[in-house]
């Protein structure tokens, strides 16, 4: 009896706490809010049409371009950007490199939200989303399908990331026992998560293996899965650097003194990792180029475009990272990370949209509605991030 009363009391207390935490904090009329709120509202209107009138009413998708910006950018690129979480958890929990401990929480949170919002954007693109339940509950398992694997791994990975993040939630809600319990699960979740990440990062590339006759030969290779995996490493690292720059401006007061101090060391370390991963990636690319004798393809628009991607946005940022690490120049690392991110966007969009059916007359380009919805997804993610980061102990002060 009394046990029950205590439980109810606890519940009430937590509920009050939740209500209190729900309230917005800080100023309302920030530039970000002024831009993002109208876009999110507009996005919702567009989605209303998308779900009542069909995908064709708001997108430029066609029979020749079944996948457009929502898949190519939101899902395929977004998931590559979210790769940082599995790399950092690998370094910190498996290799136990303590240096990066202070950025684990924020990186995992970023990864978790990226999956929820970007991989979640997949649902917007499904023509018959109510049947998404079929491959999940086992009504119909298409075991032979790469997409089956990828979507299952998305789902499992989100759970793993949630487990990794749950100690923070428990800490925020003052559930000491829960925190102890979920903390004990961390290593298992991390290892499971890394494995799943390797598989679905490469799986996103494997999706395009059967599109062989449609993808320009400079971008098609049987090694796409490996290329996707390796590039997700520096995509993730660059994204952590990039996000770090922004959060160190925006959330200045949330970040403790000591972590400001080691921040430079962390950035240099990440830059070094990115340089190595990019070099390996470039090396693979060059091997494929030579092995497939692709130089005959280089002397036209597509060839130049390929060089822009591989030289301009892989090799150059790779050298910049290496140079900056040697000279301890944070500024150059920042620029290199932005270039590397652009390179990833180019690569993923080239494979899924731009060099896909490169020779057809009616090329696809995204409609403004597709872009607004993409912005909506990005902004909602930032909203969720901000809400959590200002309430839960995400930026560690003590470490």
């Amino acid at each position, binding site marked *: 009896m009394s046990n029950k009363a205590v439980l109810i009391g606890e519940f009430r207390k937590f509920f009050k706490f939740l209500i209190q935490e729900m309230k917005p904090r800080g100023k309302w009329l920030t530039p970000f809010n002024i831009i993002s709120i109208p876009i999110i509202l507009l996005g919702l209107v567009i989605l209303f049409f998308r779900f009542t009138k069909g995908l064709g009413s708001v997108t430029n998708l066609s029979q020749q371009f079944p996948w457009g910006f929502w898949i190519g950018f939101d899902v395929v690129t977004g998931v590559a950007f979210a790769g940082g979480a599995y790399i950092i958890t690998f370094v910190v929990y498996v290799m136990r490199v303590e240096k990066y401990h202070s950025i684990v929480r924020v990186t995992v949170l970023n990864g978790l939200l990226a999956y929820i919002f970007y991989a979640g954007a997949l649902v917007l693109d499904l023509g018959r989303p109510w049947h998404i339940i079929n491959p999940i509950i086992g009504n119909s398992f298409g075991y*032979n399908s790469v997409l089956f694997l990828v979507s299952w791994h998305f789902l499992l990975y989100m759970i793993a990331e949630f487990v990794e993040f749950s100690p923070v939630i428990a800490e925020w809600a003052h559930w000491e026992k829960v925190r102890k319990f979920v903390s004990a699960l961390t290593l298992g979740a991390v290892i499971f998560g890394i494995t799943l990440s390797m598989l679905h990062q490469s799986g996103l590339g494997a999706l395009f293996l059967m599109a062989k006759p449609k993808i320009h030969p400079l971008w098609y290779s049987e090694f796409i899965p490996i290329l996707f995996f390796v590039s997700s490493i520096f995509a993730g690292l660059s994204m952590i650097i990039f996000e770090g720059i922004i959060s160190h401006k925006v959330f200045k007061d949330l970040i403790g003194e000591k972590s400001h101090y080691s921040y430079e060391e962390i950035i240099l370390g990440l830059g070094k990792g990115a340089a190595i991963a990019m070099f390996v990636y470039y090396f693979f690319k060059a091997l494929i180029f030579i092995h497939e004798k692709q130089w005959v393809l280089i002397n036209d628009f597509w060839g130049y475009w390929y060089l822009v991607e591989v030289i301009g946005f892989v090799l150059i940022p790779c050298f910049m990272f290496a140079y900056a690490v040697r000279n301890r120049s944070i500024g150059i690392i920042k620029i290199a990370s932005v270039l590397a991110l652009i390179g990833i966007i180019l690569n993923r969009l080239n494979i899924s949209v731009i060099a896909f059916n490169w020779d057809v007359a009616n090329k696809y380009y995204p409609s403004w509605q597709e872009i607004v919805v993409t912005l909506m997804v990005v902004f909602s993610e930032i909203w969720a991030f901000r809400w959590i980061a200002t309430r839960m102990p995400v930026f560690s002060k003590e470490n």
Partner: protein
Amino acid sequence: MNRRNFIRTTATISIAALPLGKLNAQENKEKKEFVGVLVDTTRCLGCRLCEVACSEEHGNYVPDVKNDHALEKIRDTSEKQWTVVNRFETKNGEVFVKRQCMHCWQPACTAACLTNAMFKTKEGPITWDGDKCMGCRYCMVSCPFDIPKFEYNKWNPKIQKCNMCYERLQEGKKPACVQACPKDALLFGIKRELMEVARHRVYSYPDKYVHKIYGEHEVGGTGWLYLSAVPFEQIGFRTDLGTTPYPEYTKEFLFSVPLVLFGVPALLFGLNLLTDRKNELNKNERWENE
């Protein structure tokens, strides 16, 4: 603690990997000879009665073949019409070519489909099931012939493509287009027998036909076969698709999945234990999460 974690993780992973065990299930299904259709383009008149019969059979858009001048440009099948006939100007004069799903032996579309909505029936035709499909359009991305079409302007869109009149076949009838053809340009039957007929025609009239049967080996063999008097690339066929069945391209990746699922966690736990040992030697203090 570490061992417990290991067991816990291995258990979860095994459950996650369970479906993979059946990766090959589809291949071991009972063998029955697949059916197909032989299209002899030298016999086709371009009357397009097959287009009409197809659309009437499946409740799709019925073209007005007398007045719509549709032959003036090359058309693709669409979400409204499962088959179309195109006219090509060649040095042998006009050639008409019917286009529809090829009903591949090992189809890319069914390998792509994560819900088994695209399904190769044991008789051979590939069918689509609206109760399963989630509209991801991966089948469209994968099909080497660009056959599946999607209804972009409906709130509950369907994938539209030829199903070789699967309903009719089960009643013992021929596909509607074959039935409708007045010139015997279309011949329905078991592929093995169709191949014999096709070879017989090519060998008996070596001047009339090019020495190739399209669909014999393309993408691992297709249910629909074509004969032609002119090289196939001149009448709208892709001859660069190769003879590898398309699902082969993803096989290697799919096979490596279970290996990674079991191998990598073991490796990572090993690494973790190693670093743990090292840390203990270093500072004899245990590091906890957070």
